């Protein structure tokens, strides 16, 4: 890392993006615990570097698909916070008008084609989005976020083979937090891992430390450029850690306390802040201000969501078929 003016701005953007994701999810978690957010809530606290590091290398017109743990991807891609917070609270002003909730967060206006309640559900969609973009002669790309759990589902194989075959402009991002629901990835995943699987399907892949936003950013920048340049699909394997349980109601008590503590030690925001300070990109006070601003933004969004109207029950019948 070398703090030129240009990348200093980019680094600060990465930091700010991570802080906003963290603040959004901590706020949402509290709201869920307070009973204000219905339905299941999956937060990605600890994994922010992946969403930020990848999405800050994308254009607005690039598309992403996500999974059940999608707040970070959406925010990093530029989804409106008010619409997200209202959606989580089930309000009329939510991006999905209250029809989707956390697990189906989407903001098509910024190319966020949706979270997904089905593991690996976003893979075929992203592949098809890339194929459509190519067919339309556009040079936008598709990015597909999924977890380590998704690499044991069939669509992973079908989607990667397909993308390689048609040289589609799609970047697969495997967010490997080592666990799927209540089961360790290592206990359900045979063979050498996702990089080997991708390679065997014709998709070049690289592993990065997914808790180091600088590393994610650098790898993503390179892979996005290759994909956009017509080189065909790529896969980014980002190793990270989920600080909390599977859902907001899961304490994940089965994980050894020292494992969790060690992971929190190396968590991506503090770690990146240390580098920003060391590189002289920002002062501690500036960084704290970013964090505080993010938290204030999210708490204001939450307050606004709480005050926002519920959807008109009549809207439950629209958006099915026809006009």
């Amino acid at each position, binding site marked *: 890392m070398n703090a030129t003016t240009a990348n200093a701005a980019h680094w600060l953007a990465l930091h700010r993006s991570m802080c906003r994701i963290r603040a959004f999810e901590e706020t949402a978690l509290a709201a869920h615990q307070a009973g204000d957010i219905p339905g299941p809530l999956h937060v990605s606290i600890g994994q922010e570097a992946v969403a930020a590091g990848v999405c800050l290398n994308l254009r607005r017109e690039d*598309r992403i*698909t996500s999974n059940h743990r999608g707040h970070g991807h959406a925010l990093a891609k530029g989804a409106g916070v008010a619409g997200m917070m209202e959606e989580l609270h089930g309000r009329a002003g*939510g*991006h*999905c*008008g*209250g*029809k*989707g909730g956390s697990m*189906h967060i*989407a*903001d*098509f*206006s910024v190319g966020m*084609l*949706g979270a*997904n*309640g*089905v593991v690996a*559900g976003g*893979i*075929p*969609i*992203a*592949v*098809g*989005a*890339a*194929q*459509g*973009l*190519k*067919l*339309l002669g556009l040079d936008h790309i*598709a990015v597909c976020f999924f977890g380590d759990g998704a690499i044991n589902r*069939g*669509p992973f194989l*079908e*989607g990667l*083979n*397909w993308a390689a*075959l*048609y040289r589609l402009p799609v970047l697969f991002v495997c967010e490997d937090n080592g666990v799927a629901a209540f089961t360790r990835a290592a206990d359900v995943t045979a063979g050498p891992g996702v990089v080997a699987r991708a390679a065997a399907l014709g998709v070049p892949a690289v592993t990065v430390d997914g808790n180091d936003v600088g590393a994610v950013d650098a790898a993503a920048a390179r892979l996005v450029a290759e994909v956009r340049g017509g080189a065909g699909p790529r896969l980014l394997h980002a190793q990270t850690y989920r600080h909390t349980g599977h859902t907001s109601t899961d304490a994940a008590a089965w994980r050894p306390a020292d494992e969790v503590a060690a992971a929190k030690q190396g968590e991506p925001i503090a770690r990146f802040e240390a580098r920003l300070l060391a590189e002289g990109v920002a002062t501690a006070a500036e960084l704290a201000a970013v964090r505080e601003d993010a938290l204030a933004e999210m708490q204001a969004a939450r307050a606004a969501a709480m005050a926002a109207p519920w959807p008109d029950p009549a809207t439950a019948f*629209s*958006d*099915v*078929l*026809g006009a």
Partner: protein
Amino acid sequence: MTTLVEALRLAALQEMKRDPRVWVLGEDVARGGLFGQYRGFLEKFGPDRVVSTPISEAVIMGAGLGAALVGTRPIIEMRIFDFVMCAMDELVNQIAKIRYMFGGQARPSLVVRMPHGLWRNSAAQHSQVLEAWFAHLPGVVVVAPSTPADAAGLLVSAIRSDDPVLFFDPKNLFGVEGEVPEVIEPIPFGRVRRVQSGNGLTIVSWSALMPAVQQAAAVLASRGIGAEILDLRCLWPWDQAAVVASARRTGRLLVAHEAVEVGGFGAEIIACVAEHAPGVKLARCGMPRVPLPFSPPLEEAIKVTPAKIVAAADRLLAR
């Protein structure tokens, strides 16, 4: 005169010429498709719009959806209906729900083509008729034509529709001939075709069973019983008004379909008429709740035939 499969070919051809956003993906489509329904397309439109895919049904279906989300209009060819079972998450959990779930942000304009039904003793895994499932599934249009003209006109509508349309090609009728206009106009969804008028009873049917129904009606006619025959053509939206009106008028309604009788779409029609037009005498004729056997005499024992339709009509008339 044009065969039904050729009518479908012409309809897709017309639409792909009209709209460059329309494309087709599925196994062997670049070689014309399993039934020749895309013959010559590769030469005309090239490999980017006529995409012969791997045997990857989940992604055939899901990639169609993704491509629709960015503004193309895919025709998703599933080869044989039964293979849709390999792509049900993509169809049921994704395609059917994406517009609603995202509050209208997405509008997947796509057609899923699924040649279905009995065909040349293909046995249990290549003959299923599960159209009723999709009438029960919110978020999709369900089309099941039986003539070349209807097939062509409804396929044009399907391709132009902004909704996801499940198009059940009646594969056993691919060789049936009929007139198809030079310029194929879209046929609106949800309207029956009145095949013949009559006062003795109303018979509603659709898709591959229509010829059997017409043969049965001929038998009844020879006995002086005039059947009013309605080809439903679409299971969703379906022409409830026309069916109820006809049933009210004749006082008797028989619904015949190739699918298993228990839980088939006939149950919905009968239930609807029972609720809305009490007093109409009602009957169904469908397959028993048995998988399709291979051997001709076994298949014959299971499948709905003109004789079984006549027998059902006789029982209904005797009530």
